[in-house]
């Protein structure tokens, strides 16, 4: 269970997130949507403890996350960012193996090697193992990074504590086929009963199709929260995004949005 209570984050006197209180349950896929500048990325960074709120607190499994050690946190919390740029010749396999860093001392053990190989297999990047990361396309890189993040969160069997996966606009560089494939894999992982998943997505239709719960963020505050059908009403879309929506009855989520 992930819980944020009354968190506020300011930069230079301007509140990017104000008084947000929200709970994220394990076994569900939570997606945060909202217009540009609503504070979606900031919220995810606060929840993942990259940033610390000036007031309020974030709790993982009921414990204040600001007191957790870096090493402990790294074994149960992972973040997939928009794009990872590397200036040096690292192979895709080396990038994936970094996900195991929190789990081994100075050299990876045989278990770490197996996990890295399996994750590369699972995300369909095993064929790039020896390739220089910089020569991969944006979509291939993102799959390598997804494999790295999942290698970081991998563990044998169920532990008592939850694992936390954060996604910060992960689809930006993916084509439509990889967007769908990617979201299906996220969906499958989020279904695990000890996994809390929170992601930021721009595409309202994709968000509506895959999320169990949507959080609509507007100017640093939670405008609405609930199932996609509850959150995405015509009135709210008009107010928050400033566009005119039309609901077409279609697709797996029961409706498809067209905007004008």
């Amino acid at each position, binding site marked *: 269970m992930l819980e944020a209570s009354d968190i506020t984050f300011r930069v*230079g006197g301007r509140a990017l997130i104000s008084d947000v209180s929200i709970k994220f349950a394990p076994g569900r896929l939570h997606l945060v949507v909202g217009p540009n500048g609503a504070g979606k990325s900031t919220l995810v960074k606060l929840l*993942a403890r*990259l940033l610390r709120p000036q007031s309020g607190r974030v709790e993982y499994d009921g414990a204040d996350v600001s007191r957790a050690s*870096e*090493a402990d*946190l*790294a*074994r149960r*919390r*992972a*973040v997939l*960012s928009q794009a*990872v*740029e*590397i*200036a*040096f*010749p*690292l*192979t895709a*396999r*080396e*990038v994936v193996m*970094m*996900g195991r*860093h*929190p789990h081994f001392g*100075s050299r990876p053990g045989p278990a770490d090697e197996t996990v890295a190989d399996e994750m590369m297999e699972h995300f369909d990047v095993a064929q790039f*193992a*020896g390739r220089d990361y*910089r020569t991969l396309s944006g979509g291939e890189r993102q799959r390598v990074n997804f494999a790295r993040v999942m290698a*970081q969160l991998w563990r044998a069997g169920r532990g008592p504590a939850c694992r936390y996966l954060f996604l910060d606009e992960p689809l930006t560089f993916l084509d439509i086929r990889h967007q769908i494939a990617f979201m299906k894999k996220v969906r499958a992982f989020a279904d695990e009963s000890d996994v809390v998943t929170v992601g930021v997505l721009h595409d309202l239709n994709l968000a509506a199709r895959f999320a169990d719960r949507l959080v609509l963020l507007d100017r640093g505050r939670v405008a609405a929260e609930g199932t996609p059908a509850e959150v995405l009403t015509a009135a709210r879309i008009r107010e928050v995004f400033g566009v005119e929506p039309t609901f077409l009855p279609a697709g797996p989520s029961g409706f498809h949005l067209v905007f004008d």
Partner: protein
Amino acid sequence: MTKQLASRRAVLLLALTFAALVVLAASVRYGAVEFSATDIGRALSSLLPGRPEPTLDQRIFLELRLPRAVLCLLVGASLGAGGALMQALFRNPIVEPGLVGTSSGAAFGSALFFVLGPALRLEPGLWTLPVAACLGGVASTCLVFLLARSREDGRAPIVMLLLTGLAVNALFMSAIGFLSYVARDPQARSITFWSLGTLSGANWRAVEAVAVSTIGGTLVALRCAKQLDALMIGEEEATYLGVNVNRLKWVVLSVNVVVVAVATAFTGVISFVGLVVPHILRMTGGADNRFLILGSALAGATLLSLADLVARLALRPAELPIGIVTSAVGVPVFLLLLRRRRYVF
């Protein structure tokens, strides 16, 4: 695939160790005076208890040639390892260990010493010049950090460090230019020689000091290698992998300042070794930082010893400042590397 890379790295490290030993042997043998293997053996055995006092030639070998060769290895190692550290920290393959102002500050400290020393009645003793250089190096690095620190949260972002370092380096270089312009001839010549780098002042005290900083610094650096690996994919990503990025920056920069300032203090400014060496290693063995730090130390030692050999032999019996040799060889090599298509930025 990964196994192949690991074994290639092991082979490279072994080959570099061997190369360093070969160059060490050559640099104790050749110079203004040549020593044969038997001369060297006799000179070394004169150190054993109960042997007769060493002859003049043997003393030249023991007190000038040998410490110079060892100092050269150590300084080369510290420049190479420093370069590998700074490139990893700045996540940029075209960064030099002197980037945050350390070596220009050290050069300024010693130029000031050359000019003001006589007036203040400071004897250019064994320690005074290195201390002045060290103070200059640490002071200029601190200046860079104070100027690069953000007013809001006190952190020093990498881009700010890079640009501030460039500016402060330029400032100190112009100050050195001014000092050598106003200085009279013997001092002006010292400044010139020193800001081009020279190993002619080598002695065993220098070897001791540089050995402590180089070996100590390299050991600390190797302990940071895994965290520096994580830093390659970004500061945020490294944080998510459990790295305390701010603490890592401080540790690595402190190691670099100490290692570079101490080396510069005894030998002057030697450029391009710290830039080119990690570059070449990365092209041959990949970006793993443990490999890069160790390999750059070994390759830096080898290359600087070769350069010193050239500096001593080219105009024998006179000698060139070693910085001229490293730049003359380093710049074309660097340009060649840049033009190779395989190595994209």
